[in-house]
């Protein structure tokens, strides 16, 4: 492991560029970002366990509806598209943060990201409520408990990320693009992309595998 020497070199994460004058801030930012990575990995384990639980419970439908009766491929595809696109738009915001530091394009891309996130959440909530209308709430079976333990947890993360995004938009207005705001945006970006990765797992393991 190379951790012996503290890396004071400029951060190479696209999306952050604190400039030569901020030597201290760089090391600071590096710790903060690394810490966030560690948090994400811990969260990853949490999701992994819920995935595993789901996998062991798909068959526990207790006579209730199973995946085929409940999942709607069309709405899942739209949700997926929205989320994938939002990762790209967030990427664009990061790119503008790294090159140029003009506030306007950053804000616009972030707003686009927020929109897509909210669209995703809206559709997902609609999915859930139509499942519940069919009598397929978490109380119906072990399978549905596992489903409602896993998928809404991701949704909750997206909601948190959206709230965070709104806060960051406000902070950009209040503070401007200070190093603090920048590292926060950087972390939010990591979070956002991470949620996309979880979603890939969800649509593959829960939806597609369930429907195939």
């Amino acid at each position, binding site marked *: 492991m190379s951790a012996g020497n503290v890396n004071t070199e400029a951060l190479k994460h696209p999306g952050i560029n604190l400039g030569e004058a901020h030597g201290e801030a760089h090391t600071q930012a590096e710790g903060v970002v690394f810490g966030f990575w560690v948090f994400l990995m811990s969260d990853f384990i949490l999701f992994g366990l819920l995935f595993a639980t789901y996998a062991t419970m798909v068959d526990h439908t207790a*006579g209730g509806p199973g995946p085929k009766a409940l999942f709607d491929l069309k709405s899942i595809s739209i949700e997926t598209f929205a989320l994938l696109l939002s990762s790209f738009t967030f990427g664009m915001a990061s790119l503008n943060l790294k090159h140029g530091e003009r506030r306007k394009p950053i804000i616009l891309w972030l707003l686009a990201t927020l929109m897509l996130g909210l669209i995703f959440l809206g559709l997902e909530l609609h999915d859930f409520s139509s499942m519940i209308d069919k009598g397929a709430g978490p109380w119906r079976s072990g399978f549905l408990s596992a489903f409602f333990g896993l998928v809404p947890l991701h949704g909750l993360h997206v909601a948190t990320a959206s709230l965070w995004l709104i806060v960051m938009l406000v902070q950009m207005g209040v503070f401007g693009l200070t190093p603090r705001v920048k590292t926060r945006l950087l972390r939010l970006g990591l979070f956002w992309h991470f949620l996309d990765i979880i979603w890939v797992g969800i649509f593959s393991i829960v939806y597609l595998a369930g429907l195939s």
Partner: protein
Amino acid sequence: MKSGSRAHCHRGKTVRRIAVTILTLLALSVLYDDAWALPVSSFLEPAGPVAAAQKNHFIWVTLITLIVVLPAIILTPYLAWRYRYGAKKVAYKPKWAFSWLFEILIWGVPTIIVLILSVPLWNSTHQLDPYHPLASTQKPLHIEVIGLDWKWLFIYPDEGIATVGEMAVPVGRPIALDLTTDTVMQSFWIPALGGQIYAMPGMRTKLQLLADRPGQFRGLNSQFNGMGFEHQQFLTVSLKDDAFKNWVQQVKSRGIPLNTGRYGTLNKQSTRAESFAALGTPAMPQDILYFSSVPPNFFQQVIARYRSGHPLPPGDQPGTKAHGGHSTPSPNGKTGLGT
């Protein structure tokens, strides 16, 4: 140094005192054991091949592991004393911190020991797999066990009888148990015959046992399941073939039929004594229930109820207060073995 030596004396005395106490106790508990003549409740006095193998395995693993553990116990006081501060004429090498010889020893020896231990571990685990039928020329006796709060119900499907509180088995014939519960998770255990296995609602686990001598052994649940937990014990009686046949007859003639209504009384939270008070007849032994017949597929139906896909509100789950139990046994509902 003064303080060091004082520490040492103190330790020596304590150790001696403890040794004496332990020996006295050992003697005492052996005495007690004889005086009360209670059912055997330890695998260290095995009454069947499974428990005997476990005991054997226990002793061997202890001895082999001691090869690496004992040196640590001996060397600790020895080294500390020999290299104590102020000791005369011993080497002092404050910078010495590595030696290939020692490295190889301290990694190598434990590794070898673990390698040695892994062979019996692997083999015994497979041989004593509770699902693995025991080698025998005789056809196994099949018993179905249902764990209730706080007693075990034994169904002998081939004999068409059931009991609570007493499980008789023929000597020398393998016993194949199927287990489930009609309440929370439990663990079924007859130490003198073999190890334990969990029993869970809606599921069926298996256990194979064999008694190779006549005797009385304690059986119990070892998984905490509420306020009457410690009363969930039963007597295992191993009987010669004839005696066993006779016992089956006794159960048939002295028992009452098991039906849904009686089972509904039995499966409420209650100790064996309380169930006996509700269902027992003078023909049955004290605190032991005999059922002369059992509805067909009873065991399977108990399991199936949890797999029906219909919600089971607390009132429909035996072992809850809502089902009509009282979550603590009444003072005169206490039972054990040997009392």
